[in-house]
């Protein structure tokens, strides 16, 4: 049974209220817009890569608390990491949100395991994944991505909203 109380923890509510790295980067090297057409969530992500490292990253947009907190914590976590490490986290986060990765097992997600609870809420999985989805799109040069696009490698067929 879904335990959303566990999901709406202080840390998520706090990031929703005071999102970190909010805004756009004037000197971004990579940008993408992520949209979930089912609920209207959309975020703009700008990334500055230098020597294949995330030197700066910021986001803005309009979304639910789960999406906004996920984006806020994501930007904080991947900043300073190599592109390859960030891509690995994208994969791990997606696996955790869809129940394929055990948050108690080995991974590089750290505090991001607060989002593990979404795996029990199929309609909310996409809310948590959207920022990561968008990060992947920014890295690969797609200017926009959608949770409903089959072409996107991050597309997770996980129920409607």
């Amino acid at each position, binding site marked *: *049974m*879904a335990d*959303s*109380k566990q*999901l*709406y923890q202080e840390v998520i*509510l706090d990031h*929703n*209220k005071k999102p970190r790295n909010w805004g756009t980067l004037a000197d971004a090297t990579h940008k993408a817009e992520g949209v979930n057409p*089912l*609920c*209207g*969530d959309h975020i703009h992500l700008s990334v500055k890569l230098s020597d294949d490292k995330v030197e700066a990253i910021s986001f803005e947009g*309009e*979304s*639910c*608390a*789960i999406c906004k907190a996920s984006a806020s914590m994501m930007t904080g976590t991947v900043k300073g990491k190599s592109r390859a490490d960030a891509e690995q986290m994208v994969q791990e986060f997606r696996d955790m949100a869809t129940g394929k990765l055990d948050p108690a097992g080995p991974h590089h997600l750290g505090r991001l395991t607060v989002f593990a609870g979404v795996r029990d*809420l199929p*309609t*909310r999985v996409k*809310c948590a994944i959207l920022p990561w989805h968008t990060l992947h799109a920014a890295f690969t040069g797609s200017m926009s991505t959608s949770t409903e696009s089959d072409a996107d490698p991050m597309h997770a067929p996980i129920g409607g*909203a």
Partner: protein
Amino acid sequence: MTAISSAVMQPVPAALDVARIRAEFPILKLRVNDKPLIFLDNAASSQMPQPVMARWIRYQSSQHANIHRAVHYLSETATAEYEAARRKLQAFINAGEEREIVFTSGTTESINLVAHGYGRKFIGKDDEIILTTLEHHSNIVPWQMLAGEKGAKIRVVPVNDRGELLLDEYRKLFSAKTKFVGVTQVSNALGTINPVREMIAFAHEHGVPVLVDGAQAAPHLKVDMQALDCDFYAFSGHKLCGPTGVGVLYGKAALLEKMQPFKGGGDMILSVTFEKTTYAPIPAKFEAGTPPIAAAITLGAAVDYLTAIGMDSIARHETDLLDYATDQVNRLPGVRIIGTAEKKAAVLSFAVEGVHPHDVGTLLNEEGVAIRTGHHCAQPVMQRFKVPATSRASFAFYNTMDEVDALVAAIRKVQKIFS
């Protein structure tokens, strides 16, 4: 019919015995997240009472075979029951003739049938189709597809800030190019009851036929085809305490007769050779293939069930629920009701300041309260009110004032969590 006409005689509809009614709905006894289920997503689909379920089981247990085909006992029984269901639906909406009732898979198919069967034959280049801002996507997209194919245009009736159609604007849209009107009787996103009777009369003055999307109206209001005088009326079974997979298209016989078929196949023909097919008379012309026999017969039982309770009593109880809920939600600081039309049916759309509807929905579910959050397949309405989505509570006759209180308490809890 007797129940309907006797209800008309009563100046005040009888109050419902909601406790007795609820006892007939097994699903309402569920607990969700250790709380009693409070089901307020009836505009999406309503629940089924035990007597209606029993009809499906009786059909499968003792009456099932394919219809209109064989001469054996079961086929004749199933055919008779299927046609009896058609007459029940005819009575439920007071259609003039039973052949004006076409069974479809639901409202969406009903509308697509008209867009194809009428639209592709009678709507052409530069013709105009009038729709309204309040339409569900199912009464927009089939017309856009038609317009795209034919080079026709869609004109849209705007709404005011309360979510009411602007009738003056509607009238101004008419010209010699106007060939069709599609309008919902009740807005699924806002609950607005549209003045369809007046709109139909005006369209008819211009010789324009009107399709009414009755998906949200048929469960809540007494609908009367002969009084409305609409040309087409579409609705779904599963919003009427019936099963999914069945719905109705009402069409005036003269129009249905001149339309082209929607789907080709068995049962919609008189004769077939490889040179020529002669179509069956209506409604069979539009019921190709094996129809949803069990679902249609069960829907017949569902409208019997609703008629026995009385659509007037149902409407009165739901109005009481909506008025009470509106009043209670209005008292909540930071909660805004979207859709404040003077005439509304059973739908309360709202926005909680600072909280996205999806978060509202997830946290209400934690309290056992089931509502719908999202754009409700009515994105033009969301755009008009400048919200990405809303939270929507929608009521049925089996809901109670206590459940409204639980909804309000749950909204307060959401606000506390996000404070």
